[in-house]
C-alpha cells in the first residue's frame, strides 16, 4: 500500500513501487485527466503538481510519490474556475484538447514561480509540452491573459 495525498484527499493505493504515478492515477485512482503521451518525460501530457511543482507523472515512480501532495487537473480548481482554465476557454485554445491538461498544469507551475512572464519565459517553461495539433500561439496568449487576471486579483 502506498499512501499519498491526491487532490487534497489522503489516498492509499495498492500498486507496485516502480509503477509510474501516471498509471496509478489513471488506472487505479481512476483519474483520467492526466494524459499519456510518451511515457518518457518527453511531451508533458502527464504533467501534475507534486508538492506544488509541475512534474511529469509518467516518470515519477510511486516510491517517490509516496507521502507527497499530488494535484491533478481534476483537483486544480473547483469546476474550472482558475484564471488559466478561464483564459483557455476565452481564447478557444484547445483543438483536440488531449495535451491541454498537461499544458495547464505546466502553465500553473510557471505562474507560481513567475507571476508576470515574458514571451521568452513562457516559451522556456512550456517547451517541454508538445501540442501536436498546434495550439502554441494561443497558449502563449492565454497564459499572458491569465497572468494579468491573477495579478489584478492580487492587487
Amino acid at each position, binding site marked *: 500500500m502506498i499512501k499519498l495525498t491526491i487532490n487534497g484527499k489522503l489516498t492509499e493505493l495498492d500498486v507496485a513501487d516502480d509503477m*509510474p504515478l501516471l498509471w496509478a492515477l489513471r488506472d487505479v485512482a481512476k483519474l*483520467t485527466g492526466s494524459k499519456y503521451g510518451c511515457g518518457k518525460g518527453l511531451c508533458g501530457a502527464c504533467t501534475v503538481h507534486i508538492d506544488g511543482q509541475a512534474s511529469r507523472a509518467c516518470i515519477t515512480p510511486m516510491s517517490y510519490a509516496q507521502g507527497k501532495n499530488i494535484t491533478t487537473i481534476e483537483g486544480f480548481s473547483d469546476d474550472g474556475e482558475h484564471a488559466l482554465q478561464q483564459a483557455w476557454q476565452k481564447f478557444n485554445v*484547445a483543438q483536440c484538447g488531449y495535451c491541454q491538461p498537461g499544458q495547464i498544469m505546466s502553465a500553473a507551475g510557471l505562474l507560481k514561480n513567475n507571476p508576470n512572464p515574458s514571451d521568452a519565459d513562457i516559451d522556456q517553461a512550456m517547451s517541454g509540452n508538445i501540442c501536436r495539433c*498546434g495550439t502554441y500561439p494561443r497558449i502563449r496568449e492565454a497564459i499572458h491573459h491569465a497572468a494579468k487576471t491573477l495579478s489584478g486579483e492580487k492587487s
Partner: protein
Amino acid sequence: MIKKITRRNFLQGVGLSAGGLTLGMQFSVANAATIEDKSFAPDVFVSIADNGQVTIISHRSEMGQGIRSSLPLLVADELEADWNRVTVEQGLGDTKYGSQNTDGSRSVRKNYIKLKQAGATARTMLQQAAAKIWSVPVSEVTIYNHQAKHKSKGMLDFKDLVKVAATLDVPSKDNLTLKTEAQHRYVGKDNMSLLDGKDIVTGRAMYGFDTELPGMKYAVIARPPVVYGKVKSYDDSETLKVPGVIKTVELPALTPPVMFKMLGGVAVIAENTWAAIKGREALKIVWEHGKNASYSTHDHEAVFIKALDDPKETPRVRGDFDAVKKTAHQIISADYHVAGLAHATMEPPAATAQIDGDIVNVWACTQTPQGAQQNVMGTLQMAKEDMANIKINVTLLGGGFGRKSKPDFVAEAAFLAKQTGLPIKVQWTREDEIKHGYYHSPSYQKLEATLDENNAVTGWYHAMVNHPIMSTFNPMAKTAGMVDLGLGDVMYDIPNIKIALGETETFMRIGWVRSVTNINNVFAAGSFTDELASARKLNPKDNLLQLIGKDQHVDLNKDKYAYSNYGENIKDYPADTARLKKVIELVAEKSGWDAKSQKNGLPKGHGIGIAAHRSFLSYVAIVVVVSTEGNKVKIEDIHMAADIGKVVNPDRVRSQLEGAAMFGASIAFYGEVTAKDGVVEQNNFNDYQLVRMHQIPKIHTYLVDSDEKPTGIGEPGVPPFAPALCNALFNATGERYRRLPLKSLTLV
C-alpha cells in the same frame, strides 16, 4: 462570446462512481448525457424532449478540427434553438446518418445542406404546431430562439409545442425554406465557444485512452517488428510472474493485403497498464520476420531514383512536353525528396471492447465508426445481418490526422475481448504508434520546366514515385494510381504539361496522413515554382500569378486526365484560378509582401517565401518569413489566407490553419520515418520530433469572405507551408532546400 452550458455527467471512473449504470445503455463515454426523452424526433439528427431540451447528433468524429463545435450549429441555427438549451450527442456508428467517415476535409462540405434541412424540418413543424394550437395561419407564426410568437396570441416555448409537433407529418425536404446566410445567428459567427472547451480544461473530456468499464483489463501488444512477420514461438513464463499480469494471448498473423487487419503478435492482459507494459518487456518471442526484413529505407533510395527516371505511367498529358523540351531556350530541372512520416497523434490509438451476449460494445477514438464496425465484424467473423449488434461509441480523439481512420486497433480490442471474455482496453504506447504506423511514404520527385527566349514557361514536367497507399489494399499495386493531390491537378496555364509516375514495391503499411500526397507533391511543385521565379528573374509572387494566368475554371478532365476532384463533380466545384489568385493577393497584401520581397526589404539574413495551392476544394496561400544565422533558422512570421467558401465556424477554421502551419513545420524540420531490415528505427518524441512552443511565432490568418459552397479546412493548410518556408530560406540564404526534413538546419 456565446457560451454553451453543457449538462453532461461524465462517466469518469464508471467502476467507482456509477455503480447503478448498466452497460447495455450504450452511453458514449465522450458525451454521456444521452437524453432519453425524445418526444419529438422529426429527423435522425435532431430531437426535442418534453422540457424543450434539444438534442443534436454530431455524427462525425471530433479530433481537434472542431466538428462538434461546428456541425451542430447548422441544425441549431435553422431550428432557431437557444444554444444554451441544446445537448450535442455523439452518434453511434450507424448508416442511418450517411457516411461518418471523418477524413478528406469533407464533413462540412457533405453535411451543410443536410443539417440545415434537419433543423428546418423541426422548425417548420414547431411552427405548424403553434399555428394549430392557436388556430391561426402558419404564416402568422414566427419562430425565434426556442419560442413561437404570434402578434395577438403571444408566445409559446418549444416545450409547449413538442407534443403537437410530434403528431404532424414530416414535411418534404423540397418544401423547406432555409435561412439565408444573413439570417444565421450561430453559423459563420466568430464568437462561438468550444462545445467541449470546459470539459477539456477540467480533465473531464473522455478520449479513447480514458474509457473505464467495471472489470475492465488492460492490454498492450508485442507486434511483429516487420510487417507480415509472425510469432514462431514465445515464452511468457517471466511475463506471468509480473504482479498484475493475468495472461497472454497470441493474435493471428497478418495475411495480405494489409487492409485494417490486426498486425498479429502477443497481447499481455493485466490489471493495469504498467503491469501490461512490464509483462510485455518480459516476453521472449522468436519472430519469423518474413520477406519485408530485406527492406531498408536507405538502400531503397537507389531503387526510387531509378524508378523516377523510368516512369511507367503518364496520367496527364497536355501538348507535347518532350517535343518542346528539344527546342527549349532553357531547361530548368530539380529533384526533391520528402521522407516517410508518422501521424504521431498526441493520443496514440486506443480502443475498449466488451462482449455482452450477442452484443459487441466498443469505445474507440475512431475517425470511422462504420469502418470500425465492419472491421470488427470481419475480425470476429460475424454475419453481416448482425452488424447492428456491434455498437461503436466514438470517444473524443486526441488527434486523428488519418491514423484513426484505420481501425486495426479496434479489431485488436474486439478480438481480445472475445478471446478472454473480459472487457479489454488496448492502448498503444508511443513506441507502438511510431513503429507500427500506416506511414506517409517517402517520395522522390523530378521537376522540369522549359522556357522560351522570352522567359515564358512553355512546358512543365512533374514525375513522382512513392510507395502507394493502394498497396495497403492491393499488394500488387506499384504506382500511386491516383495522381491528383497536387501532382496532376497543377493549375498553371502552361501549354505543355506531362505528369509521370514511377513504380516500386512496398514493404511497410502505407496510409494517408493529413493532406496525403499533397504534402510531397506541393513541396516539390511549390519550391520549383520559386526556382522558376529565379530563372525568370521575376518576383516570386508575380511569377506565381503569371503561371496561374487568366481567370478560368481549369478543365482538369481534359489532357487525357481522369481527375477525381476529391469526389465531386468539377462543374460543381471548379478549379477556379481567380480564387487561387485571390488568396495569393490577400496573403501578399496582409504580410507586406511587396515591400519585404524587394532587395533589402528585410534585414540581412532574413527571407520571405510564398506558396499557394488548391486542395480538398479549398484555396490556401501562405507567406513565411525566416531569419537565419549560420545553420540556425528562426520562423519570424507566418501569414495564411484561405478561401473555403461559406464558413460555419470561423474560429475553428483559423485554428485549423494555425495547426496546419505547425504540422507543416514539423514535417519540414523533423519528419522522418526510416526502416532498417524492415524495422522502423524511430521510437518516441526523442527521435521523431515535433515542433515546440518556442519555435512558433504568432500566426496571422485571413479568411476570404466567400459565398461559394462550403469546403473543408482540416488539411488544405498543410501543403503550402513547407514550400513557403523553403522559399523563404532561399530568399534569406541563396540556398535551395530540396530534401525534407531539413537535416542541416536547426530550428530555434
